[in-house]
């Protein structure tokens, strides 16, 4: 309980929470010179506790990181090593839409984190599923390290966001603006004329994508998604719950996760960064066989057998029931000579044949040397065993 001082007419009469106590002592020095203004009407609504001064700064000062309970809790929840200071973690939660100054936002940390994450996810996927086609590899990369997934990761860490960014918000909150347009950070080569590609006049095949596009196979610097084009709406006419706001929130959360990864790498080194990615990102699971969408699996399988010098695939009826009834069932297997490559069950013969071909192709593409494959980055560790060459596939099945 404190009594009001004559020189401070709006001193708090009673502290509603203990968090205000610490704040009070920290701001006592500055209290005398600055009038207390938090943007509310003090005559009609006398403040119960002294909130931090409404500043013109776009993000809180780094010193505020030491007094934020949320930030310290986040640091401990992620079991971050003590080498990583709270100030860096606070900086990792400031998005570019909140603060444009690269010294105080998470852009550079996010870029470092993105590079490291994509490297480790890519090498793990390539070693684990060496025969995965490039389109599926892109989809798997996106499943593990894309914006939507990292948004989910951030939410699972309990990262809360501030309603509006500003200098007075708690350092432990993710700060971003939902209506401010922000430019993507990408690394790669841009095509000379992206509009031609959109019109369908320039072909954007796999080799082209590997060369020019980002790690998810998407064009850099030219986002055709409508939700990326955020309209410059003022705060007054702004509305929540639209596609643009959801996209902005997703991007900000993903950037925060990448920034945390980047800060772990920067402060604690390469192995700590790899361990962090393995624990938080690569521990997540997806059934890779659900990522496939085939167009003509029968032809593709025939091409595969031709390339590998197997006998041509023949669809054989393993068993059936109820051919003339309302719900027939056919079990069809695809055989190359005497060996069965795959089988499937369906309601009509054509579907069963397609499905069997798809299952055969999936069993080719999803070959894996094992779950705990060795990755090349293991060789950077001192004292690791001699490197045995991992299986490298000849490549995708080329058609036409």
């Amino acid at each position, binding site marked *: 309980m404190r009594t009001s001082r004559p020189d401070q007419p709006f001193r708090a009469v009673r502290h*509603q*929470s*203990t*968090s205000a106590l610490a704040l009070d002592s920290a701001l006592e020095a500055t209290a005398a010179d600055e009038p207390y203004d938090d943007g509310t009407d003090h005559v009609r609504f006398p403040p119960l506790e002294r909130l931090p001064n409404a500043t013109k700064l776009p993000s809180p000062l780094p010193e505020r990181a030491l007094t934020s*309970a*949320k930030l*310290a*809790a*986040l*640091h*401990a*929840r*992620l*079991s971050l090593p003590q080498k990583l200071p709270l100030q860096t973690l606070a900086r990792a939660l400031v998005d570019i839409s909140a603060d444009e100054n690269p010294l105080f936002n998470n852009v550079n940390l996010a870029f470092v984190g993105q590079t490291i994450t994509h490297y480790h996810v890519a090498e793990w996927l390539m070693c684990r599923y060496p025969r995965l*086609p490039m*389109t*599926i590899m*892109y*989809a798997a990369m*996106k*499943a*593990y390290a*894309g914006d*939507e*997934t990292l948004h*989910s*990761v951030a*939410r*699972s*860490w*309990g990262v809360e966001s501030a309603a509006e960014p500003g200098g007075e918000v708690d350092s432990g909150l993710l700060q971003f603006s939902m209506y401010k347009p922000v430019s993507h950070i990408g690394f790669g080569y841009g095509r000379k004329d992206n509009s031609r590609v959109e019109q369908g006049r320039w072909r954007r095949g796999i080799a082209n994508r590997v060369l020019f596009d980002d790690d998810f196979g998407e064009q850099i610097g030219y986002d055709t998604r409508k939700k990326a084009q955020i309209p410059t709406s003022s705060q007054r006419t702004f509305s929540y719950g639209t596609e643009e706001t959801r996209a902005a929130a997703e991007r900000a959360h993903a950037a925060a996760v990448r920034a945390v990864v980047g800060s772990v790498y920067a402060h604690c080194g390469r192995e700590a960064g790899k361990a962090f990615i*393995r*624990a*938080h990102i*690569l*521990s*997540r*699971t*997806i059934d890779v066989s*659900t*990522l*496939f*969408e*085939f*167009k*003509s699996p029968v*032809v*593709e399988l025939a091409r595969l057998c031709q390339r590998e010098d197997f006998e041509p695939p023949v669809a054989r009826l393993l*068993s059936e*029931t109820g051919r003339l009834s309302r719900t027939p*069932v056919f*079990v069809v297997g695809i055989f190359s000579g005497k060996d069965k490559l795959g089988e499937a*069950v369906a309601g009509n013969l054509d579907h069963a044949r397609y499905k069997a071909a798809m299952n055969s*192709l999936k069993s080719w*593409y999803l070959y894996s040397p094992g779950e705990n494959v060795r990755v090349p980055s293991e060789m950077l560790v001192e004292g690791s065993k001699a490197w045995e060459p991992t299986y490298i596939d000849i490549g*995708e099945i080329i*058609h*036409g």
Partner: protein
Amino acid sequence: MGVKAVHRITTGRNGLGAFILQCKKMDFHYCDWAGSSKGMNGFIKSILPKFAAAHPQIEFTVSPRPSKHPVIIGHYINGRDKAICVRNLEPLQILKKVELLRDASGEKLKKVTKPVQSINESVRGIWSPYHGNGMRV
């Protein structure tokens, strides 16, 4: 021709790689006047500092709630919260409630009837009537 991709995201498995404690914040509300809050006041003075030091991943807030029973509110990562009124409890009993809140996830209480809950598919696959030796009906 070629294989197209379907857009999907991965599912997290808490505890497999890193473990994230689901309780992220605990509010302790006490009252200086009410007799039901005696245990709570004692808890805050004696046990809470050590408990808070032992759980740095939880954010603790202590504030008075005058003329009301003492209550502990736990906030969880899935956005839900759980409140436990600790009126007329002794400090050690309150500690048990606090541990209950700490160990809970934010999910609603569900009756569990099956011994195993898993997202992994079975080792031998789902039984199919069209494979194996069949069964004479």
